[in-house]
């Protein structure tokens, strides 16, 4: 027979005002197996916990029930108290008679609340009687981190982890790290040059002894769980031997063929063998195979001839490398929504309609115009530029419903950059609202208006078209209630920030959640903003949603702190509330495997005495299982069960009702 103690908490008046706690305790005393009952003002207080410990020892209890608030609040507290009194912590269960009982009843006669508390507690007693003591699961931790994406968020995370003394593998799909920030000219709100503050960090990452950078690489496969991931990385063929290349750039110089530069957003050409920009890290070129005549039809080969260290290797193939990883930081960043969706703005049709990032390149001293604002069509300096905000953002019908958050700020910045470079130029900005929340941000926008003469018009633009060689912008100024028309020399679209194409596939590979826009989901948007629901995988930067550089950097550092705290122990303890398979009756239908949202179920071979696999069954990986119980519901042969919540326990609880 069990020796169970039942402690009923009054929670001051929170519970006691609608529940007769004494009566609940007295009723429970009548149940076989219950050897102690009592009620108390505040069970969670130190005297309450002390009392609990003493009773456990004095009455030699083998199980404890605390009927109190939600287990989210104090399950840990009471289990710890039991443990220190020598009881297995999983022999302590909570009945929620506050949130589920006293708070939802107003009956001051306490009748209803008391009856319900008695029912709930009785059910827990029957469940507890069938509780098996469980042991915490200890899993070893491999102390190497993987950072996916080498934008500013990923670089920051990598640097902080590396500075914390742990090894980092940084995987970047482009030939250089740096991300979108490398494209920016100057940055709001301080107007410091983007490259000048970014490149030192890129170089620091390259030279850091704890950081290994794989560029032109992508994640092929991820297996395992927190502390124990096995990651396969595809190193795409660069056709340049990274160990031999000295970065002299002779090959780039001599390559006779060109293609549109991705980095310059098609405003300029690059060679077929190239680095995206002069300060690329690593400074090792790649060959764009689809445009290289040598690789396509064995003609040319100029680069190989001039390359001193003989680093060019036209036969190079993709390689898969495997890394053993303890934690992952995902920092894959953003793209701009393709402007081609907005035919009414003439993008793609009218040459002088460009995107915000293209404007950054025009304003950048390392850009295609050397930092002079010259329009793409004829290289003339535009005397009037119209900036259109919220293109695709806040547009449920054609674009996305959300606000891209940073375009108000960068459009204001663009008007300033333009005015500083073209002194008698006139900038116009069409806006719906100006969103400039942030330290010194609104002052920044006011400076653009009051000091640098940008003309802000409140309204959307309905169309941009050509008339007699001029680009006409037609929109509204709702402040004066009129339609307005402006002859523009150039138009800049602040297009929506969207998730990287393919972000959803990466999420599926990693087993993390994403929203309908493919931005990655935080575990909790307020309280656990850098964690994902998959333990050991963290988030940083604009892959979560639109944000600016300071926020991306903060998130990078925050994710690094999470990784470092995980790595501070050699093993980590996990709650043993996991699923388990009753192996003899599993018929390998794989319903559980398909149902599990955490990919915790794998197939396991059952071997005969000779070691031959005779059949396959489902197996739960304790490190990955989050104890959600979906598999239990899915299993047709009822052979999978959840520790602490077995069918037997749950039915016993129901029968006690």
């Amino acid at each position, binding site marked *: 027979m069990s020796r169970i103690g039942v402690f009923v908490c009054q929670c001051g008046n929170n519970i006691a005002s609608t529940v007769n706690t004494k009566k609940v305790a007295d009723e429970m005393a009548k149940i076989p197996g219950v050897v102690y009952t009592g009620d108390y003002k505040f069970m969670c207080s130190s005297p309450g916990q002390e009392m609990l410990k003493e009773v456990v020892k004095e009455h030699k209890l083998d199980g404890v029930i605390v009927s109190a608030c939600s287990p989210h609040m104090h399950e840990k507290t009471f289990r710890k108290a039991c443990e220190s009194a020598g009881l297995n912590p999983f022999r302590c269960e909570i009945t929620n008679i506050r949130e589920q009982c006293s708070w939802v009843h107003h009956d001051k006669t306490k009748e209803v609340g008391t009856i319900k508390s008695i029912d709930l507690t009785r059910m827990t007693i029957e469940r507890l009687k069938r509780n098996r003591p469980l042991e915490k699961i200890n899993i070893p931790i491999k102390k190497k981190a993987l950072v996916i994406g080498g934008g500013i968020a990923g670089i920051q995370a990598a640097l902080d982890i590396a500075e914390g003394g742990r090894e980092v593998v940084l995987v970047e799909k482009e030939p250089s790290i740096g991300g979108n920030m490398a494209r920016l000219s100057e940055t709001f709100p301080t107007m410091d040059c983007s490259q000048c503050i970014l490149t030192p960090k890129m170089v620091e990452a390259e030279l850091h002894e704890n950081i290994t950078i794989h560029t032109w690489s992508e994640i092929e496969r991820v297996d395992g769980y927190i502390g124990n991931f096995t990651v396969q990385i595809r190193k795409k063929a660069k056709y340049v031997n990274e160990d031999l290349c000295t970065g002299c750039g002779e090959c780039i110089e001599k390559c006779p063929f060109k293609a549109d530069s991705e980095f310059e957003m098609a405003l300029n050409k690059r060679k077929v063998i190239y680095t995206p920009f002069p300060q690329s890290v690593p400074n090792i070129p790649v060959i764009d195979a689809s445009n290289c005549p040598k690789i396509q039809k064995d003609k040319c080969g100029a680069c190989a001839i001039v390359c001193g260290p003989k680093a060019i290797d036209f036969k190079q193939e993709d390689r898969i490398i495997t890394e053993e990883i303890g934690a992952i930081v995902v920092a894959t960043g953003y793209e701009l929504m393709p402007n081609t969706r907005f035919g009414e703005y003439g993008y793609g049709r009218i040459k002088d309609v460009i995107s915000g990032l293209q404007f950054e390149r025009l304003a950048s001293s390392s850009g295609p115009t050397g930092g002079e604002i010259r329009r793409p069509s004829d290289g003339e300096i535009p005397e009037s530029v119209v900036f259109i905000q919220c293109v695709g953002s806040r547009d449920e019908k054609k674009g996305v419903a959300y606000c891209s958050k940073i375009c108000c700020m960068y459009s204001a910045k663009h008007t300033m950059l333009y005015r500083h470079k073209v002194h008698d130029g*006139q900038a116009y900005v069409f806006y719906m609202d100006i969103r400039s929340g942030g330290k010194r941000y609104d002052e920044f926008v006011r400076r653009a208006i*009051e000091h640098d003469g940008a003309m802000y018009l409140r309204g959307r633009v309905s169309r941009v078209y050509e008339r007699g060689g001029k680009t006409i912008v037609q929109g509204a100024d709702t402040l004066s209630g009129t339609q*307005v*028309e402006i002859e523009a020399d150039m138009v800049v679209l602040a297009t929506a920030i969207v998730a990287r194409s393919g972000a959803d596939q990466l999420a599926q590979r990693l087993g993390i959640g994403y929203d309908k826009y493919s931005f990655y989901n935080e575990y909790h948007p307020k309280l656990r903003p850098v964690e994902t629901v998959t333990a050991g995988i963290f988030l940083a930067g604009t892959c979560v949603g639109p944000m600016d550089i300071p926020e991306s950097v903060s998130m990078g550092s925050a994710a690094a702190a999470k990784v470092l705290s995980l790595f501070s122990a050699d093993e980590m303890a996990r709650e043993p509330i996991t699923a388990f398979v009753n192996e003899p009756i599993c018929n390998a239908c794989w319903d559980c495997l398909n149902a599990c949202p955490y990919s915790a179920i794998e197939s396991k071979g059952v071997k005969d005495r000779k070691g031959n696999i005779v059949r396959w069954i489902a197996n739960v990986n304790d490190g990955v299982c989050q104890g959600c119980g979906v598999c239990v519901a899915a299993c047709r042969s009822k052979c999978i069960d959840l520790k602490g919540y077995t069918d037997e326990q749950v039915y016993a609880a129901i029968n006690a009702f």
Partner: protein
Amino acid sequence: MKIDREKLHSPFVEQVERVSGEVFANCYQCGNCTGGCPVSFAMDYGPSQIIRLLQLGQEQLVATANSMWLCVGCLQCYSRCPKGVSAASILEALRQMTLRKGEDHEDVGGLPFPFLKDAPQQAIISGFRKFVS
């Protein structure tokens, strides 16, 4: 309405800024001035709308609106403005600029004698100052 650089910086706009001492770009267009103005209900354009039209360089609309003549100079607008812009000064500037062109708002000769005789002195003097060059 067509807007361009010339309109935004027209001599008229610059003169109103100089005479009033106000910079139109400073105005948020929050509408607090119009909200508090005791006579904006009767104006063609409230004080904030007048400022908007000036920001947009719309001389014609501003010059023909009755707003400047209705303003009583109570300075409610100025006392409420979060940017310290005085719509009152701007309307005063518009009045002065109109009157100095010799364009009277009131035809004194046309006023009926009994009215002039019965009206309080204060009203006649301040009225003449405000409406007549």
